[in-house]
């Protein structure tokens, strides 16, 4: 399946929950400065549970469809459940392969969510480096893993590497 699968494009063209709430409990804006994607995520809570979700934003199909799909899953979840959401969960929600160059687009909705929760608890926001580091499937991790297993480019004898290059 490719990045621009029909479900991604469908959410991009008709985003869900894309309107702002009158009285959100918490609101968080995140931007992807390198490409100009912006997301504002709003959450309302009843006790520890999300009662309503709203968002607004502009940007590429991946970030906007991702926010739409993530927003659909949030109502009824508890704070504790949402705090444990990882990049791998965002990858599952998106359901398409995410290459290194689109990783930030894909993780922007999750960053907005996690930082909304941290803001609510008066904790400092996660940085891009921190959220990317949580992503066990990113390509650099794969490279490190390969090289530890002895399959990496730099773990073979130089002569073999040079010959196969």
């Amino acid at each position, binding site marked *: 399946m*490719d*990045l*621009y699968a029909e479900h991604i*494009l469908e959410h*991009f*063209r008709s985003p869900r929950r894309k309107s702002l709430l009158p009285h959100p409990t918490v609101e968080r804006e995140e931007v992807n400065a*390198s*490409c*100009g*994607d*912006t997301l504002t995520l709003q959450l309302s809570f009843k006790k520890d549970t999300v009662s309503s979700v709203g968002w607004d934003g*502009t*940007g*590429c*199909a*991946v970030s906007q469809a991702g926010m739409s799909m993530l927003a659909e899953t949030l109502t009824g979840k508890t704070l504790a459940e949402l705090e444990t959401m990882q990049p791998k969960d965002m990858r599952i929600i998106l359901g398409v392969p995410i290459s290194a*160059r*689109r990783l930030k*687009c894909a993780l922007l909705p999750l960053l907005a969510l996690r930082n909304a929760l941290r803001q609510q608890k008066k904790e400092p926001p996660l940085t891009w480096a921190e959220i990317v580091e949580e992503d066990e499937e990113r390509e650099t991790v794969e490279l490190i893993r390969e090289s530890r297993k002895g399959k990496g480019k730099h773990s073979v004898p130089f002569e073999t590497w040079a010959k196969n290059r």
Partner: protein
Amino acid sequence: MPLNLTEVRTQFPFLREKGIVYLDSAASAQKPEAVITAMDVFLREDFSNVHRGMYPRSERATKAYEDARETMQHFFGAAHSDEIVFTKNATEAINLVARSWGKSTLKKNDVVVLSILEHHSNIVPWLQLKEQIGIELQWVKIDEQGQWDMDHLKSILKTHRVKLVTVTGQSNVTGVRPPLKEIIEESHNTGALVCIDAAQLAAHHPIDVVQLDCDFLAITGHKIYGPTGVGVLYGKRKLLAAMPPFLGGGMMIREVKKSGFLPADAPEKFEAGTPPIVEAVGLAAAIHWLGQYSWNDIEEHESRLLKVAHETLEDISGLHILGHIEEKTNNQQLTTMNLSSGCLSFTIDGIHPHDLCDLLGEENICLRAGHHCAQPLHDHLGIAASARLSFGIYTTEEEVQMVGPAIVRAMKRLQGESNSRVTE
């Protein structure tokens, strides 16, 4: 005689990748065999550190490095080879001007003029000086047609507080070329120096620093078919002589005592540490290689490419080319006049440039998306990002013509057939 493109293209190994349409030469140009070979041969046969060893191989390396300096001197038409400083890239060259000349010369409330067209590398070093010593920055506007506003510069110069005008020779987004000769004359008339960011210009237009009379000029090697890791700062001999060193270390000193040091003369004064020797050799090879073609032929070829690009893009509905002139001719046909070079950028209503370029990338058509390190210009134009198409000497009309239909396919895919406002 027009460029023999077949002959040009056989010299670029990257073109052996089947089906690649590389339209991102403004980010970095691909390298001809001549450059790759020169660096390979130098590393095998002549490499050692420069200016140090008393043995023949070191002498050969030193000679190759200093020959590269002379090559750059002739490329710019500079009067002296010691006016050529090797740096890491154009960014470092401009930082050198800001940190050395700027920091030692400028005082609080002195004005440095730049333009809204600048790349971040010609903005941030000056913003840093604004933070550090309180200089004032003035931004020359562009007019509605994206062109340099000379009257605005003149009105700023009238304040007589301007110490430096620092401007791009060619925008890396719109390809617009500010009128350098006129800018330099006007600035000098009020006593201001001029620094040119020629990172983009150098690959597309001849530069003569004596004829221009610019005070500083910066380029990077990798955009002019040379390797990464090497750039050049040209500075007038008198100015370089009066400037303090930039970085401290080996090579840049005459004498070091525990109590202090005496710097070397320019250019060594600005080349601390082991310089980019292999890269300088590669850059010189690129300049010699480029020298076999006439600038007239290159410019003619690239202006034809730009015309083809306009033709292939202007019929796509919802597509806006940034900073270009639209004129109705007598028969009321919309034509685009071309006062730019090397590249053009555009937006498409409702489509993010990253999505567009990702889909073009699937077809192996390589365009760049983003703000191209020119955020103030994008802010000025009221957009977050754009897609850019840029050329090199190896680019063909057929490659440029492929972009239009590929964009239409990408738009259909993103917008859906039914929503599509595309007219083919």
